[in-house]
């Protein structure tokens, strides 16, 4: 008997993505990530299991969800606002609170899909991929935290001639992915802080494993497939020191492409929806001029730059 196809939690699938690799792409967002970057615009991607998001602005405070919750995980707090106790919430299969809410104020991020189901969902766009030189981009979260799933998925895509690219934070176990990682058509490899202390402070983890993985990757695959992705966070990653280290790193690894992602706060609202605090300071901003300066600096070091963002 055939093994059951592996499955995992996916929290979003986006079609007609134009900033996540060449051509028209569908981006698959995996759940689970080992980093906790403060500026993360997809906080619902971080935990490895489904989570409840509750929108204060859509909520009419009718309390229907309180009535239907079997675990008393939802209550009114002293300010008459709804409070979700996520320790008690068991993410019921039939999602009674989501179904009961008439205002679309509650949603669950994370749906379990097996490889075949996921493939069918994205394969409908194969003509758009082939006409545009596009394909699928795995993102997240950290797709490589699900090596068995990704291995099976990429195999299936290869069978049908679909291009698959990867966006990775670099924090994964090399041994689990080394057998298939060369099958990606391109890899956006995130580099945040090259200083280990700063890395710990702002991403929650040392950058040691990330840099080791990059080194292994640069020897295992053609380095033209690797594009270093840098979220430009003023005062944190977009500093002269960090960028000089980045240039050195690119030279060492023989990597010549960098993707710049200027800081934005678009994901801020989702922290509140998850009952979490947004830790970035208000007023952190990066201007077009600063981004252009950085681009110029990198290009003068023979590094090709792509800028994505609004």
């Amino acid at each position, binding site marked *: 008997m055939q093994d059951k196809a592996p499955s995992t939690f996916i929290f*979003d*699938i*986006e*079609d*007609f*993505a*134009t*900033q*996540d690799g*060449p*051509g*028209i792409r*569908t*981006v698959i967002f995996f759940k689970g990530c080992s980093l906790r970057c403060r500026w993360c*615009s*997809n906080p619902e991607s971080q935990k490895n299991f489904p989570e409840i998001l509750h929108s204060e*602005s859509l909520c009419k405070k009718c309390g229907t969800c309180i009535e239907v919750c079997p675990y008393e995980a939802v209550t009114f707090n002293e300010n008459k606002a709804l409070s979700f106790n996520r320790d008690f919430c068991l993410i019921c299969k039939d999602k009674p609170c989501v179904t009961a*809410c*008439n205002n679309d104020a509650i949603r669950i991020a994370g749906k379990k899909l097996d490889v075949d189901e996921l493939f069918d969902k994205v394969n*409908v*766009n194969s*003509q*758009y991929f082939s*006409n*545009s*030189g*596009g394909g699928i981009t795995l*993102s997240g979260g950290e797709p490589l935290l699900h090596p068995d799933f990704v291995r099976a998925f990429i195999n299936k895509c290869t069978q049908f001639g679909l291009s698959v690219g990867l*966006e990775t934070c670099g924090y994964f176990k090399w041994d689990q992915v080394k057998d298939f990682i060369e099958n990606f058509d391109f890899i956006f490899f995130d580099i945040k802080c090259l200083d280990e202390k700063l890395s710990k402070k702002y991403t929650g983890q040392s950058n040691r494993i990330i840099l080791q993985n990059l080194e292994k990757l640069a020897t295992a695959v053609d380095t033209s497939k690797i594009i270093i992705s840098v979220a430009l966070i003023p005062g944190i990653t977009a500093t002269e020191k960090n960028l000089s280290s980045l240039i050195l790193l690119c030279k060492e690894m023989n990597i010549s492409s960098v*993707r710049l*992602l*200027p800081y*934005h*706060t*678009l*994901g*801020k*609202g989702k922290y509140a929806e998850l009952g979490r605090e947004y830790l970035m300071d208000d007023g952190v901003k990066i201007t*077009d001029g600063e*981004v252009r300066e950085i681009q110029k600096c990198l290009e003068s070091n023979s590094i090709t730059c792509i*800028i*994505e*963002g*609004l």
Partner: protein
Amino acid sequence: MSSCSHYDTRETKGAPSTENVKIMRNRYLSEPMKVDVEYMQLYTKAHKTSDGLNSFERRAHCHAYALENLTPVIREGELFSGNKTRFVRGAIPYANYATNYILRTLNKEEQETQAKFTEIGTGGGIEKSQKIASEGKHEVFGKKFLVSHEEKVILKEIAEYWSGKCMQDVADRFWKNTFDKAEYIEKGWKAGLYTAPHDPAPEGRYVLDFETALAEGFDNIIKKTKRLIKQTEVTDYESAEKVYFWKAGHRTLEATIKWAHNYSEEALRLAKTEKNDKRKNELLKIAEMCKYVPAKSPRNFHEAMQAFWLIYLAGHIEGAHLGYSPGRFDRYMYPFYIRDIENGTTTNAKVLELLEALRVKMTEIEYMASFSWEGLGSGNLYQNMILGGLDENGHRADNELSQLVLQSAINCQTTQPTLSIWYDDSLSNKFLLKAIECVKTGVGFPAFFNLKIYIQHELQKSKLPLSLIRKYAAMGGCTEPTMEGMSYGVVQAGFINHAKVLELALNGGLDPQTELTFEKSEIPQNYDELVKSYKFHLRNSIKNWQRYWNYVMAAHRDTCNLIYSSMLVRDCLDRGKSLDDKGAVVNGSPTTLSSGMVNVVNSLASVKKLVRDDKKLSMDELRKALAENWERKEDLHKEAMDAPKWGNNDDYADAIYEELFDSYCGYVSEQLNYLGEPYDPSMLAISTHAPFGKVCGATPDGRYAGETLADGVTSPFYGTDKNGPLAVLHSAGKIDHTKIRGGLHNMKFLPSTLKGIQGSKKLISLIKTYFDTLGFQLQFNVVDSAMLKDAQENPDQYRDLIVRVAGFSAFFVELGKSIQNEIINRTEQNL
């Protein structure tokens, strides 16, 4: 149709390339809209003194007399001349078509019932009109036009004269007394099943045969006409009508030449006193050109532009047109262009200046109609210039001139003409990239049309040879294809409100809002009965509507037949028959337009799910919930909202669309038009989705009473497409677009989604792939900061706007205000 009231530009930002165009465009932007009675006053004078003439001759004489005596106006900066009225933004009150709305407006009486649920814009020129009126010399006519006190008196006289004689009155006397479904039609207007009668501007939707007119010159056409008259002996009614038609046609062509000569003389007069040498030479050139064309074939590109404009404008003056279009301009003007370029007598810069000037000239034309039609059409004239496509041998037809036309639209941003592209895979990359560059200015065009689909449609409908269809496929009106220079003007009855048809179906023929009963039917108790009942009412509403319009067209032939235009549409001249006598090659063009199908599809999907499959409630309970506008039925409302919806690539809903679409096309084609040809189905919405929504109660799809219907033809209802833009296209690709003439699919993007040349290429791939799956039309709104601010104010109209940044995606209207502001700021900076 694209509205482009926003002139802020995005990735591409252009400016008029010369001082002349700048002067013209600025003048247009600073002028109010005015009623000009001159043409109608002259027309009426001629009508009063031409009793006893044959109806063709009388119609021709009135138009010709008026045209010959119009004041020629040449304005600063103009490099070729010809104006529809004496005012920069003037409109002719065509009382010969319909006079009731003019009289009602003058008497400040209540407009037709429909005015109550139609809104017109209030910005721009409209605001200006009201301001100027407050200064005292003018008053406001209707909502947006100014009329001087003296002209108002004249207008009243004219309007009173035409009372009882205009097309609308002649038609009303006819159908109201003889048509057995007359009462149904009038109820239909009261209930908002139909749009208001379209008599004030019933025609357009066709393209003149510019190719022949330019190549021959009017002198040769007149020669031919005279020869035909001589060769034809009158022996019977038919031969007599032929000769009358030729005589009438001859009169209009002569008058057009005379009108051109008036411009020539005016230019000479102005040149005499002109101090600036450069301007003096320009005026002398105009004088020379208007003496030569349109009588003779133009000798160079500049002259061809002058000739085109006069030929086009004379037709525009003759009829109360909407959708009257210049067609395949880049094809028939190309020989003049390339000859000058090759012999070095002109440059692309000079050509560009003329093309930019043409944009201003076409935008200056205004039309006035009854209040509700102005609201429905958003005051747009729908002059559609279509580029690209194929030649008769199937090779790509885009050329250097096509690119210059696109560049002129980038440089000189005006609302008219709207640009379209006949898409074929073979079009050059350079041309397509230029088209996307134009899209990125945010003007909302060019729109892309799948030529392959129209060819299949026309091969089935008119059975014309393939080579002919390739060469002359054009666009007449906002999204309706037509065969250039050989088609009867699509005179449309107006729109059918699908959501109202559904209300009738649900309630056994009774409209719950007005309590009017249409055709009685069984009150449906289950899904299948509802579908059956819907089809019954749909068929009736279409049939009655089309039959009614044939009565109006009979009156049209007697009162407002287009004589000048007939002379320039193949094969009217050769056959000796006017457009209204089936003189054109293609006569099956009239369309029945409809709006609101998506809400019906979603409603049926909802009934199928809740009543049939899940058995949550009975039809009576559903009717009750709808009557109470979902009040105290929040749970049920949510279930209705959660039922499958069109636009998610879900066959549960999409299959219903396919079925209803096929029925609709079948019912439309069952009926014959006034010329005895099957009506050709079309679907578009222009601005009907708002007023049509307003008159309908709650619908089973979860829509509340009065809420706007889904926009366009295949666009999902606001916020119900949850699976992304490609899923919507997969749904839209399921219907057989070859069955209809026209269709519309609007997509909105933030500039960042389409950034750079890579972004342009991605958009081209999107168009190609959608068209590979047999989609018909795509148009794009690249939003700018002004639109985003509008979205903050009116989130319902922007539910589909996705914010996509690498690795992040959200609906704009769902983001917090501060984040929205950040996006607005970023869009202004546009990295």
